[in-house]
């Protein structure tokens, strides 16, 4: 039996277990190898075995006793096959103790068990007696090898298979989280990450890169790496790393640009979870940059009306002919800033003038020019209305009705900004004119309220003048009466 143990290993074993039980021999392994069971066979390739941990290290008992009853005596500390949470606790017995780990010459972190407790996998299983996932669920029990060993179930190329053992199992997932899909691997294989991973690239993202390894939380957990507000940071961990991304020859400034964009500001600064993160455009498990054709569909999932208007606009064909991406051409991609009215028109900062100039595509040039002046006049009308309403309000006048109509002006302006995407001057003018009409009514109403304010003061001056004159003349009259009386 001894021939299975290499002399070198025996030396290391003796040297390394000086802190623990000093073993002369390992009767467990001897017997179990003879009986030819699988665990003992696997264990010989196990990193633990190589580092001198014996069967008794996890299962207890007396490994030096030849007698089976003696060796597997419960009184001697034999624990048998650990059940339930005892499995992970057994692992944690060493893996959570930095001293013990050091004594085995390992520099692995020692917080895995702790992290696992915060994970969604620490939820109790259907039986309710233990956590769903134990260490051995992913790492195996016997025959554990280092992560960098290609045969490890948690080696980058194997992780997906390990995770999908459960996550692709419909029956299993239904019993824990029926709303969770089970096609992640399928999708993943369609993504750039997944295809590269399949080809043996260990550097592309697999499950654990985005979801974490021991501390996997649900996507709804605010601390999850894939929680909407955390997701851009998770992607950028690799994608903004210039050195890491070098072999792939793609830009690394997406995060930087995104953070400055209207979407990035909404998500990262205003914590508006409706705002798109990386995955909203590129997909989750099937992450991929959208092609020229599909950009409008990507943007259109949220900006549907704009996309719809664009599709039926004359620009659709023009862009297609020139192979221009639909939204991106004017709005850019990662660095989409909040669109202002300045994008429209023929001024230098306007995007229309990139194609439409006075000499080239003159019809569009004129349309852009007049559309811009329309929206500008509506904007000016709204600004004036706000000023007038404010003034009337400051003067203490009651103008809630004008204020109510002011909302319609604003609505028309916002609607016109959407209507721009139809690139149809007539339709655009209709929306703007509606707004302008209301704007004039608001201006009239608030002006009459302001007028009323001055009318009140004017009326006061007139009436106090009348009353004062009357009072003074009455007083003079009384004085006269009294004087006359005295004279008489």
């Amino acid at each position, binding site marked *: 039996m001894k021939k299975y143990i290499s002399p070198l290993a025996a030396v290391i074993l003796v040297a390394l277990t000086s802190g623990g039980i000093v073993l002369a021999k390992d009767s467990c392994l001897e017997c179990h190898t003879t009986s030819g069971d699988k665990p003992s066979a696997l264990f010989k390739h196990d990193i633990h075995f190589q580092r001198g941990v014996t069967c008794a290290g996890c299962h207890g008992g007396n490994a030096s006793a030849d007698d089976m009853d003696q060796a597997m005596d419960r009184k001697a500390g034999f624990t048998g096959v650990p059940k339930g949470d005892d499995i992970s606790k057994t692992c944690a017995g060493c893996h959570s103790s930095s001293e013990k780990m050091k004594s085995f010459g390992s520099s692995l972190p020692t917080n895995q068990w702790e992290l696992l407790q915060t994970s969604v996998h620490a939820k109790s299983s259907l039986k309710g007696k233990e956590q769903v996932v134990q260490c051995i669920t992913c790492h195996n029990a016997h025959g554990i090898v280092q992560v960098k060993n290609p045969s490890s179930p948690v080696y980058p190329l194997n992780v997906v298979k390990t995770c999908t053992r459960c996550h692709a199992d419909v029956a299993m997932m239904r019993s824990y989280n029926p709303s969770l899909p089970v096609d992640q691997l399928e999708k993943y294989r369609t993504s750039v990450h997944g295809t590269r991973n399949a080809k043996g690239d260990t550097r592309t993202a697999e499950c654990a890169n985005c979801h974490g390894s021991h501390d996997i939380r649900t996507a709804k957990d605010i601390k999850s790496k894939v929680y909407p507000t955390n997701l851009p940071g998770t992607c950028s961990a690799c994608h903004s790393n210039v050195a890491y991304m070098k072999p792939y020859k793609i830009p690394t400034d997406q995060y930087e640009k995104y953070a400055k964009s209207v979407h990035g500001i909404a998500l990262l600064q205003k914590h508006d979870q*409706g705002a798109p993160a990386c995955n909203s455009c590129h997909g989750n498990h099937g992450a991929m940059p959208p092609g020229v054709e599909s950009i409008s569909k990507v943007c259109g999932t949220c900006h549907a009306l704009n996309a719809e208007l664009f599709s039926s606009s004359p620009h659709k064909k023009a862009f297609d002919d020139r192979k221009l991406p639909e939204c991106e051409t004017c709005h850019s991609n990662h660095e989409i800033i909040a669109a202002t009215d300045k994008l429209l028109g023929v001024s230098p900062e306007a995007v229309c003038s990139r194609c439409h100039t006075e000499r080239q595509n003159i019809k569009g040039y004129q349309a852009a020019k007049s559309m811009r002046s329309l929206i500008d006049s509506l904007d000016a009308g709204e600004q004036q209305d706000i000023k007038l309403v404010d003034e009337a309000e400051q003067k203490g006048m009651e103008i809630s009705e004008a204020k*109510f109509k002011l909302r319609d002006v604003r609505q028309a302006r916002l609607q016109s900004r959407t209507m721009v995407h139809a690139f149809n001057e007539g339709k655009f003018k209709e929306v703007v004119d509606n707004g302008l009409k209301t704007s004039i009514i608001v201006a009239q109403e608030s002006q009459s309220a302001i007028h009323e304010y001055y009318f009140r003061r004017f009326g006061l001056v007139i009436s106090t003048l009348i009353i004062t004159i009357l009072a003074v003349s009455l007083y003079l*009259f009384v004085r006269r009466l009294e004087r006359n009386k005295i004279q008489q």
Partner: protein
Amino acid sequence: MNQTSETPDRQSKRDFLKIILSGGVVAFFGAILYPLFEYLIPPKQAEVEVSSVKAGKLSEIANDSGQIIKFGTKPVILIRTAEGELRAFSATCTHLDCTVQYRKDFGTIWCACHNGKYDLHGKNISGPPPRPLDEMRVVVQGDDILISKKV
């Protein structure tokens, strides 16, 4: 001599005072009565805006329909679902304050400005709206539908 020169002066002064006085009385009554009579003329507009609004008659609202109702200074959307249930929400889109409407073809509440959609419980389900619409209280009294703020 002195007396004769003084008397007409006094006389004219008294007359002047009397003119002022009687003119003043007339003007005074004018100043008082003008606002009074103006006040008595009933204004054209509807008389009272109420914070709980009568939204119409139950029998006049079809199933699977929605309408905008003026609630003070803000619009409210009253929805009657296909099952006949009544619900009311603030009609102000939570995205950029446009007024939402009911779209029969989608079966959702829809904002024309940016295609935001809410389900018939006011929850934002698609498009840019960041949060659900505020719900209002709907009370049916006999055939009358009353909408008021949720407490």
